[in-house]
């Protein structure tokens, strides 16, 4: 499957029919999210979509709440078997404060690709979740039994943590374990 990239700035310009690159106001955020939802719906089947924010200028809390937080809430509530994994890219340092704040407000987290291409998880995750996510990311993919020793807790506990990360769409469930969203076959 070819990974899909959605240019959020292009969506913004098309959704609100204006020539600016600022994610401002709740109305704008709602229009942008609805269009992203339509594009995601067309990319069903377990694929991973990259949402590219690199051409976005300013961002406020109301718009970030609509475009980032509400989108993630919808994806989390969606049927896992139908796919709908999203990684964010191009979120600059100047956007991070706003994005992290809305994520924490909702108890959400997302995977974003830094400028150097390395992934990180931002938002609200427990210490155990962050550690497990890092361990899977370092390996590309892993089963609970492979992580239990290094983790220092039993396999059941690790499985629970990984299940929760998959439910939150921060990892993808594979046939033999859990797969990082930035694994080579997932995101361009």
């Amino acid at each position: 499957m070819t990974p899909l990239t959605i240019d959020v700035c292009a969506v913004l310009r098309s959704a609100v029919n204006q020539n600016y690159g600022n994610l401002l106001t709740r109305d704008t955020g709602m229009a942008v999210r609805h269009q992203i939802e339509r594009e995601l719906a067309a990319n069903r089947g377990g694929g991973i979509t990259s949402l590219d924010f690199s051409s976005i200028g300013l961002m406020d809390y109301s718009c970030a709440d609509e475009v980032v937080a509400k989108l993630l809430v919808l994806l989390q509530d969606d049927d896992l078997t139908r796919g709908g994994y999203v990684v964010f890219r191009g979120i600059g340092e100047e956007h991070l404060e706003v994005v992290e704040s809305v994520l924490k407000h909702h108890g959400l987290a997302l995977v974003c690709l830094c400028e150097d291409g390395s992934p990180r998880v931002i938002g609200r995750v427990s210490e155990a979740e962050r550690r497990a996510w890092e361990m899977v990311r370092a390996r590309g993919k892993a089963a609970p039994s492979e992580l239990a020793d290094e983790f220092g807790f039993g396999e059941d506990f690790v499985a629970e943590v990984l299940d929760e990360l998959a439910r939150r769409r921060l990892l993808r469930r594979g046939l033999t374990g859990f797969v990082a969203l930035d694994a080579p076959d997932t995101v361009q």
Partner: protein
Amino acid sequence: MNVINVPSSLDDQTFEHVLEQLAPLPADERVLIDARNTEWASPYGLTALLTLAQTRLEKPQFMPPEKDDTSSYWSRANFFRYAEDLYEIVGRVPARRGERDSSALLEVTPVSKSDDVHAVVQRIQAKVPTILTQNLHLESRSVMGFAMALSEACQNIVEHAGMGGWVAVQNYNYRKRMGRHVVQIAVCDAGVGIRQSLESGNRRPLTDRWDDGVALESAVIQGTSRFPDHGRGQGFKGIRGYLRKWKGKLAVRSGTARVAEVPPWDDDVVRRDHLAPMPGTQLFIMIPEDVDR
């Protein structure tokens, strides 16, 4: 005719004297707002004067400042452009020459819909980095938060007021209190106000006491919104966070109360109750020059 005298220096504090004079008068009683002796007005003063006219059932009269400099500045700041519709102007108003005032980051501008917020932010986007970094000596990362604060403040009108309001942004030397440069954002409307907004969404907290002050604290400090949606109410939280970082000030007035996020350089009070009534919501944000840099 009831004459309401405008103080010589008109800002958020002295505007209270205007409201105190208006308080005993019914909304349908005609008034004359006499600004002949006014020499200076902050963005809050100018936008609040327009808002005041919207609260009167009988079109009020308005006497402009006699001092040419003042009157001319108010004209360049677009005050008379809108005041001429809202007031019956008594006296001479300087003609607008089309040029913009260099100290006004944003002249008095109406806000009623989401597109207006975009336009307002876009208008100041080019000027703000220079003002914040060169005049106020703030770090460049303060720029994004400034635009965010302006956007969120204006959105309160779009989302909650039920009618249009006004925004103005100005960079000036705040000699009276600080002797430093500041940037002030003023956003005023004569809409439903915060208490009624929360009541309309059945968002009144379960407390024995319920008045404008409690409603204001609930909205501004606790982030309560009339919408039940969990994501609402983050705007004020974001503005307060930004202002704490840059030692700025926020004051929000609605009905008969006012709450403020008071920075260390100011001696304002955090909450005032039993003020003279004023429909709608009026707020200002002030960001001071960083003199330590």
